[in-house]
């Protein structure tokens, strides 16, 4: 009993010390060229998805909110699902993440089914993982290479108003194409656009 108490005390001290010693860090830790922050989140069916289990695979993270008209535009046009299936057919793991504070797995299932999404929609209602990645917008896209490093973060494309008739570049498709061909991603970071992620705090 005594040993346990002292262990607990020691652990508490270590945590305190770490908090004091650790320099003031920025909230988000996702950065191009760095390891993608780890996470375990439940999908719309309640199944836990662990990023660590995807090692060796290219992973796309799509910050997602079905109540955002910018997301809606990419889904009513069919483009987001088309892009996702193009790459999941080739073995890429595509995970939507909803950090909206008041959404449940059931909400995500209902909205995802309505949008014909045949891929996991992860529940991050606490916002912890969203903040960890520095996700600010929906959609906000991250591409992680097979070694677990972030190789792209930012907008889905260069068409915020959806009114470009030529010269549209889908940055995620571009990054995945370049990864697949073994070249480096030419535009690894862009400014995301869309609705703010509806965080709890």
């Amino acid at each position, binding site marked *: 009993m005594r040993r346990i108490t002292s262990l607990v005390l020691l652990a508490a001290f270590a945590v305190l010390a770490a908090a004091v010693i650790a320099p003031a860090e920025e*909230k988000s830790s996702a950065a*191009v060229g760095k390891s993608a922050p780890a996470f375990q989140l439940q999908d719309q069916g309640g199944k836990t998805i662990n990023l660590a289990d995807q090692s060796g695979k290219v992973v796309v993270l799509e910050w997602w909110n*079905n*109540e*955002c*008209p*910018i997301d*809606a*535009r990419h889904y*009513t046009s069919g483009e987001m699902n088309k892009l996702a299936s193009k790459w999941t057919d080739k073995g890429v793991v595509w995970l939507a993440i909803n950090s909206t504070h008041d959404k449940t797995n059931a909400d995500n299932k209902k*909205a995802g089914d*309505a*949008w014909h999404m045949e891929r996991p929609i992860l529940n991050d209602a606490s*916002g912890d993982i*969203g*903040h960890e990645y520095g996700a*600010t*917008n929906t959609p906000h896209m991250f591409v992680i290479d097979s070694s677990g490093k972030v190789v792209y973060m*930012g907008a889905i494309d*260069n068409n*915020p*108003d959806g*009114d470009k008739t030529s010269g549209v570049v889908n940055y995620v498709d571009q990054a995945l194409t370049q990864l697949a061909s073994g070249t480096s*991603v*030419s*535009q*690894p*970071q*862009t*400014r*995301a*656009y*869309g*609705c*703010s*992620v*509806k*965080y*709890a*705090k």
Partner: protein
Amino acid sequence: MKPMKRAIFPCFVGLWFIAFACVARGSDLVSAEMLSDVSAIAPGKAFNVGVKLKIAPGWHVYWVNAGDTGIPTKITFTLPDGFTAGAVQYPVPQRIDVTGGMVSYGYSDEVLLMATITPPTNLKVGTSITIGAKASWLVCKENCIKGDAKLEQAFKVAAVPLADGYAEFAKWQAQLPQATDRVKQDVQLDAAGGQFKSASGKLIIKWDKAPDKVEWFPDATDQMIVSTNELKTENGQSTVTFKIDALPGEKVSDAVFNSVLAYTLDGRRVGLAVPIRLNSSNQSQGH
């Protein structure tokens, strides 16, 4: 009777995408009206047109740079042959703190986005012309809704312009960022190998009388991230220190980007237009 029909129609027809067809539309939360400061134009004489957006209480639309999130409000004018339009001018924006630690720049209540139009000198007196405007916006509160409007206004062509609606334009022109030589800027570039990568900068303005609520709004381009490190007002001057990082893989082609330094003095909000120069000659300018 008519408006009710209009409200039901999109929900009924849009059953298959009911999730977003039956929510309020951006046009219900923002009303757009085209305005000008003349009712008759004259050959070669510049005049102003604008789109005034009235925004539902608690909601906001975005500045030319939306900040961390959002989509800029955009106005495009359609002009008859021979007419030219200046850049759309955006009044000094407000800072909008978004839950989650994000900051957006935009407008609540109402805003007039305007441009100066110059007709050709060979325009025939006695005819009439039409100018079109297309406005698009994202309006947000807790959720966001996209909206747009197509507007037009007809003008008679007279020998001399007939001023009309001047007061409204004067009110909004007073809220446009003003050119200034009062802001001193010092931007240190890290451009190793001739390629701009990052810069650290400082803006300094001296005050005769210290104002309230000094804010800085950078209009960063898509090729860079601008972060404000510190903004302090003390000893009769305000200092903004900031950092600019070129996005990896992007060549920063613009040697200048715009910014607005805003402050409130004697209850009046003022914005100064401060172009930030990203070339080596910046140290000798801006005094």
